[in-house]
């Protein structure tokens, strides 16, 4: 697919080191794939169908019809705890900005999908493992508030290792902030679709990800509250490979549907067709 204008501009502004890498190796089948082809195939391995983790802007470009206007982009991270571990938090943030071409772990904004106006939030695992700190919480809340004002549906793609430890409790309470924003948004008669991508865990899973009216999961995505290693340490045995995958959760009744990435946009458009224009009743 051609790169939309907003994305070209965006890309030319931010350094995007991943663009520089011309080739990617599929971690599942080992095939070496030309990066441009991979992008054109929505980062799905042409050989084995493996879904690569996808950058937020790439994702947006595969979902949104054309233009995309960001909200909350001006909200940037602070360092409320003055955090230092092996590095300072500040250094980690700059490193990730450099590496991912993103200012934070979520990109939010408005655009059209299949001709429907929507609010769209997309998390990106490449930035601090998609962890939720104050900026992610703030941007998600701004997105929901603005979507509520515009009375348009909201779609949020999740990808997260959980709450961001470097921001301590200020990160954890973003679960409360985003939940409050979801409640206000949906109580006011609007519809929220969440799309759970690999991985969706911890504080993000346990807040807005599982508060969607319809919960879609991308094929093979790992979804859960506790991390696999934590569970394995607790029960002192290895978990089956299938555990915590989207397909597993579908069987366990936790999510509405599992969708292959290349069918995602079409699915979202269908979901919008069912729900947009109907007046919401309580």
């Amino acid at each position, binding site marked *: 697919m051609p790169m939309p204008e907003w994305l070209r501009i965006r890309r030319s502004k931010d350094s995007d080191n991943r663009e520089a890498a011309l080739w990617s190796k599929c971690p599942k089948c080992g095939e070496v794939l030309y990066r441009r082809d991979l992008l054109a195939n929505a980062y799905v391995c042409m050989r084995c169908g493996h879904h690569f983790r996808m950058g937020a802007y790439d994702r947006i470009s595969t979902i949104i019809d054309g233009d995309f206007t960001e909200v909350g*982009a*001006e*909200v*940037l*991270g*602070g360092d*409320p*705890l003055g*955090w*230092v*571990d*092996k590095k300072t938090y500040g250094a980690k943030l700059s490193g990730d900005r450099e590496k991912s071409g993103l200012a934070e772990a979520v990109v939010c904004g408005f655009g059209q999908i299949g001709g429907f106006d929507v609010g769209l939030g997309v998390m990106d695992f490449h930035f601090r493992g998609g962890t939720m700190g*104050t900026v992610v*919480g*703030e941007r998600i*809340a701004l997105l929901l508030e603005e979507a509520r004002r515009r009375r348009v549906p909201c779609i949020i793609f999740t990808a997260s290792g959980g*709450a*961001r*430890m*470097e*921001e*301590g*409790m*200020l*990160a*954890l*309470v*973003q*679960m*409360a*902030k985003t*939940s*409050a*924003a*979801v*409640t206000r948004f949906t*109580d006011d008669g609007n519809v929220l679709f969440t799309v759970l991508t690999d991985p969706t*865990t911890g*504080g993000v*899973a*346990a*807040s*807005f*990800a*599982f*508060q969607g009216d319809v919960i879609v999961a991308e094929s093979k995505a790992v*979804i*859960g*509250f*506790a991390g696999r290693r*934590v*569970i394995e340490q*607790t*029960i002192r045995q290895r978990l089956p490979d299938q*555990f*915590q995958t989207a397909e597993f*959760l579908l069987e*366990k*009744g*936790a999510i509405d549907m599992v969708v292959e990435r290349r069918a995602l946009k079409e699915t979202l458009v269908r979901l919008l067709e069912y729900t947009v224009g109907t007046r919401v009743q309580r």
Partner: protein
Amino acid sequence: MSNNLIVEREKGLLELERRIAELRSANATQPVDMSSEIAALEQKYRQILQEVFGSLTPWEKVHMARHPNRPTSLDYISRFDRFDELHGDRQYRDDPSIVGGLALLHGRPVMAIGQQRGRDTKENLRRNFGMPAPEGYRKVRRLAHLASRLGLPIVTLVDTKGADPGISSEEHAQSEAIAACLHEFTKARVPIVATVIGEGGSGGALALAIADHVIMLEHSTYSVASPEGCAAILWSDATKAEEAAARLKLTAQDLQRFGIIDEIVPEPLGGAHRDGSGIVTRVLTEVDAAIARLTARSPEELLEDRYRKYRRLGAWQTTQGEVVGQST
């Protein structure tokens, strides 16, 4: 040896306590007056208590919050004027790590909900060390919903290492269960007062702690992750837990500064368990006072205030470096 720092430190004090008691009893039965020796020992005892517990580091507070004798939710709930426990998620199981029900607090009907760890090994096994399964959170949600429907203020007591991380908890959608609690607490049309009485561990604690008024005991902790877990992940070195505890800003004092909690209830020197009855009285008084204040607000005002409170939590800056939001 206990793996609890505070329990270890208390051993020396226990020895001293024993000697004082011995002297006292000897004094009562023997002709020799040992009251000045007793007074000296007591003086020394108070001095050591002050030295050992007078100011606690975050890491020490982590251990204080986990102290095996620290009053648990049931120690508080049993001190309400009355309590009738309501069980179950109405679907699958009654999770004993959550205790909830109708209660009278200073004559006022409320819904009381707490996380309950065991007070001995057997009870700990039964109550899963206070780590709720999804069925527990679904019970919380059900009771919060009932309280909202009946107009009863909700009083929660937070004391958990975190939500249960087992296989069946994942299979029963732990994420969904917690998310549904958060949803319910953001829309409950009644006053909510939460008190962190021990360990407030991660999302599993927050699920009971979206509240109009959040209290913490002086030496309780409330953290995005356990210091051990944080150290293992961010330092790749679990022995850095003490440093992590300091960095995480998990103490009541730090969290009040950030605006995440609203009130601190002081503990006796040496921790809440040195005067369990007194601390329970104090907490219940503060909870009642908070409810009394909140009851004056209409449901709409409560919801609006609650929304604003959580909406503004978190510091951030615009690209221009200008601060647009502040945590304090």
